[in-house]
C-alpha cells in the first residue's frame, strides 16, 4: 500500500505524518508536525518505562538491584541489537523477517567451524561475511529483482534457518573456551554492564547519528515516505536499501555470535521465531509499518520497555511465556493511539460520521513504486 494517502486527510496522524515526513526530508523536521507527533509518542513511551519501573519495584524488591539489571539487559540484548537495523529498514518502507534466521545461521556456522577446529578469529570473519552475504541476497532480490520484501524475507527466513539445520542438524556445539563464553555472561571488566548492552549502546549511537544527522538518513525517510519522489529527487534508493539489508545481515550475525556465547551453545534453532519480536519492538517504538516515520529514540525506549516488562513479569511469577499478551496489547495500543488522539480532537473518522464501512484494507509495508 502506498504510504501517502492524500485522499484520507481526516483519518489519522499516520497519513498526515507520511506527508509531513516528506517535508521533513527537506530539513524542516525540527518544527514539523511529524517531529512533534513522534515526540508525543516518545514521551508516552517514556511514561510507560517509568510505569514499568514503578510496577516492577513495587512487585518485587529484587527488581531494582544491579544483578537484576544485568539479567534484564543480557536477556534482551540480541533482540535490542537486531531492532536497530530493522528500524532503518522499516522506515525505508521495507521489512526484514529473516533476521532471526540469520542469527540462527551465524550461530550454527560458528559451532560448525569451531567443531572443525578453526581458530576463533577466522570464524568471526567467516560468520561476518556470511551475515553480509545473507543480507545482500535479501537486498538484491528486493531492489534489483523488484520483489516485495515481505515475500522475499519469508523465503530467506526458511532458507537461512534451513542452512543452519543443514550445518548442525540435531547436534549442539558447546565446548567453547570460557574466555569467549564470558562475553555472553560476564560484564565488561570493572563494570556491571553486560557486553551485549555495551554493544547495543554503541550501535544505537551510530545508527541514531546515521538516521537523524546524515543525508543518507534523511534519504531513508524520503524513500519510505514516497519511493517515487525519492527516485525523482535523485536518491539512490536501490543502493541505500541494499546496503541497509547488508548491514542488517552483519548486525544479525553479530547478534548470533553473542547469543551463542550467552547460552554457551551453538544449536540450529537459536533465536527461532524472534523475528516477530524484533518487528514488534520496532513498531512499538512508533515506527510506521508503511515507512517514512519513526525515530531511533522511540525504538530504544521501546526496547527498554520491552525488556523491563518481561523482567517485571518474570519476577512476579506471571507465566513468562505469556508476556506475549502484554507485548501484543502494547502493540495494539501503539497503532490505535494515533486514531484515538484524532477522535479526542473531534476529527472523527468518516466511518463514524457516515455510519458506513469504508474500512481500511492496508496491510503491508509495500514498496509502492516499481524501481525500474
Amino acid at each position, binding site marked *: 500500500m502506498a504510504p501517502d494517502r492524500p*485522499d484520507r486527510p481526516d483519518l489519522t496522524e499516520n497519513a498526515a505524518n507520511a506527508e509531513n515526513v516528506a517535508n521533513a526530508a527537506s530539513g524542516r523536521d525540527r518544527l514539523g508536525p511529524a517531529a512533534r507527533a513522534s515526540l508525543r509518542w516518545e514521551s508516552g513511551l517514556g511514561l510507560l518505562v517509568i510505569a514499568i519501573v514503578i510496577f516492577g519495584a513495587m512487585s518485587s524488591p529484587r527488581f531494582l538491584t544491579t544483578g537484576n539489571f544485568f539479567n534484564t539487559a543480557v536477556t534482551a540484548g540480541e533482540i535490542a541489537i537486531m531492532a536497530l537495523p530493522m528500524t532503518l529498514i522499516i522506515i525505508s518502507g521495507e521489512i526484514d523477517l529473516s533476521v532471526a534466521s540469520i542469527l540462527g545461521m551465524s550461530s550454527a556456522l560458528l559451532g560448525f567451524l569451531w567443531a572443525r577446529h578453526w581458530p576463533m578469529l577466522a570464524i568471526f570473519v567467516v560468520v561476518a561475511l556470511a551475515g553480509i552475504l545473507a543480507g545482500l541476497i535479501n537486498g538484491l532480490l528486493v531492489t534489483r529483482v523488484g520483489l516485495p520484501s515481505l515475500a522475499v524475507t519469508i523465503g*530467506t527466513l526458511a*532458507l537461512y534457518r534451513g542452512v543452519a539445520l*543443514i550445518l548442525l542438524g540435531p547436534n549442539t556445539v558447546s565446548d567453547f573456551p570460557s574466555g569467549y563464553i564470558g562475553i555472553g555472561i560476564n560484564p565488561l571488566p570493572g563494570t556491571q554492564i553486560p557486553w551485549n548492552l555495551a554493544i547495543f549502546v554503541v550501535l544505537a549511537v551510530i545508527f541514531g547519528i546515521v538516521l537523524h544527522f546524515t543525508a543518507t538518513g534523511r534519504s531513508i525517510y524520503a524513500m519510505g515516505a514516497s519511493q517515487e519522489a525519492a527516485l525523482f529527487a535523485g536518491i539512490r534508493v536501490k543502493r541505500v536499501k541494499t546496503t541497509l539489508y547488508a548491514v542488517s545481515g552483519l548486525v544479525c550475525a553479530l547478534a548470533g555470535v553473542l547469543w551463542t556465547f550467552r547460552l554457551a551453545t551453538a544449536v540450529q534453532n537459536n533465536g527461532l521465531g524472534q523475528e516477530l519480536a524484533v518487528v514488534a519492538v520496532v513498531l512499538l517504538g512508533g515506527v510506521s509499518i508503511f515507512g517514512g516515520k519513526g525515530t531511533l529514540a522511540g525504538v530504544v525506549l521501546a526496547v527498554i520497555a520491552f525488556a523491563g516488562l518481561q523482567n517485571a513479569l518474570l519476577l512476579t511469577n506471571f507465566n513468562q511465556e505469556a508476556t506475549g499478551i502484554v507485548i501484543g496489547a502494547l502493540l495494539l495500543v501503539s497503532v*490505535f493511539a494515533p486514531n484515538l488522539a484524532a477522535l479526542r480532537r473531534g476529527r472523527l473518522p468518516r*466511518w463514524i460520521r457516515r455510519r458506513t464501512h469504508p474500512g*481500511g*484494507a492496508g496491510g503491508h509495508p*509495500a*514498496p509502492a513504486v516499481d524501481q525500474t
Partner: protein
Amino acid sequence: MTTTVTERQDSAGAPPGTGSRKLTERVFRIRESGIIVVFVVFVAVTTAVKPSFLDEQNIQFLLINTTVFALLALGETIVVVSRNVDLSIGSVLGLSAYVSASMFGSHHVGVPVAFAVGLGIGLACGVANGLMVAIGRVPSLVVTLATLYIVRGVDILIVGGNQVNAQTLPDAFTQIPRATVLGVPYLAIAIAVVIGIGAYYLRSFRSGRELYAIGSNPEAARLAAIPVGRRVFTAFAVSGAIAGLAGVLWAAQYQTIDSSAGTGYELTVISAVVVGGVAIFGGSGSAVGAAVGALLLSSINSALNVLGISPLWLEAISGFLLLLAITLDRVISLRLQAALRRRSSGVGT
C-alpha cells in the same frame, strides 16, 4: 510494484479490454498451471527414482499431512488476495486445538461439540482481527502480529504446563483423519470439497471478485462503491474460522497437544500460498494454486523421506522454492508487460 499491480488489476477486477483478453487468459493459465506442472514433474521424478513414493500408504500419509495445511492455505488466500495478511492463524490453531481437545477429557462432549467449540474460537479471533483492521483502519500486519502474541499468550495461560494426551480422546475423534473410502482418506475429500467451494466463491461470486478488486487497488475499489471494510472483515472472520477448524483437525491428527501447537505455522502457510502463485500484495492468485502449493511443500517433505535424504534439507528447499516462485512470477509479469507495451504501440501506428 505499481506496474505489476496495475497490470494484474486487468486480470482480476475490471473487465478486461478486448485487446488484452488473450494476454489476461495467459496470465491465468501461467499462474495456475505453472505450479501444477512443477508439482507433476516433481512427483514424476521422485517416483522414477523411488517407485515407493506412489505407494498407497505413502499417498494416504501425504494427503492426511496436507489436509490441515491446505485448509489454512485457503483461509490465508482469502485474506492475502485482499492485500492483507493474517499472521495469527498459528496461534488461533494452537488455542482451538487445545481447548477443543480438552473438552473431551473435562466435559465428555461429543465430536460435533468439539468442532463447534474450535470453530467458535477461530471465528471469535477472526472477528476481532477483522474489526480492528476494517473499522480501526490499522494495518493488518500489525494487528495480526499483535493477536499472534495475545492468542498464544492466552493459550499458554490456559494450558499451563498441561497437555492433552491421546488416551483422553474418543476413538470417533482420533479416527477422523484415518477413515478412508477406496483408499482415499475421507478427510482429504472433505477438505478438497471445501477448497473447491472456496475457489469457486473467489472466482465466480461477486463478493469474491470484489476481494480481488480490493487487493488490486483499495482506493479504486472504494470509489467503485465496493464495501471494502465489510469484505475485509469477512475475509478475516473466514480465515479465523478456518484456523479454528484446522485446530480441531490438528488435535485429531496429532493427539498430543501442548501450548506450542502450531507455533510459527503462519509463515509456513504464507509460504505455501505464495509458492502457489498468490501475489503477496493481493489482487491475484487462486485458492486452488495455494492448495497445490501446500501439497507441493508437504510432498517435498515426504519425498525427502522416501529418497532417504535427510529431512534437514526441507526447510532450505522450501525457502529456496518460495524465492524461485516469486522471482519467476516477477520475470513472467515483466515479460507480459513488455508484450502489452509492444501490442499497444503496434495498435497506435
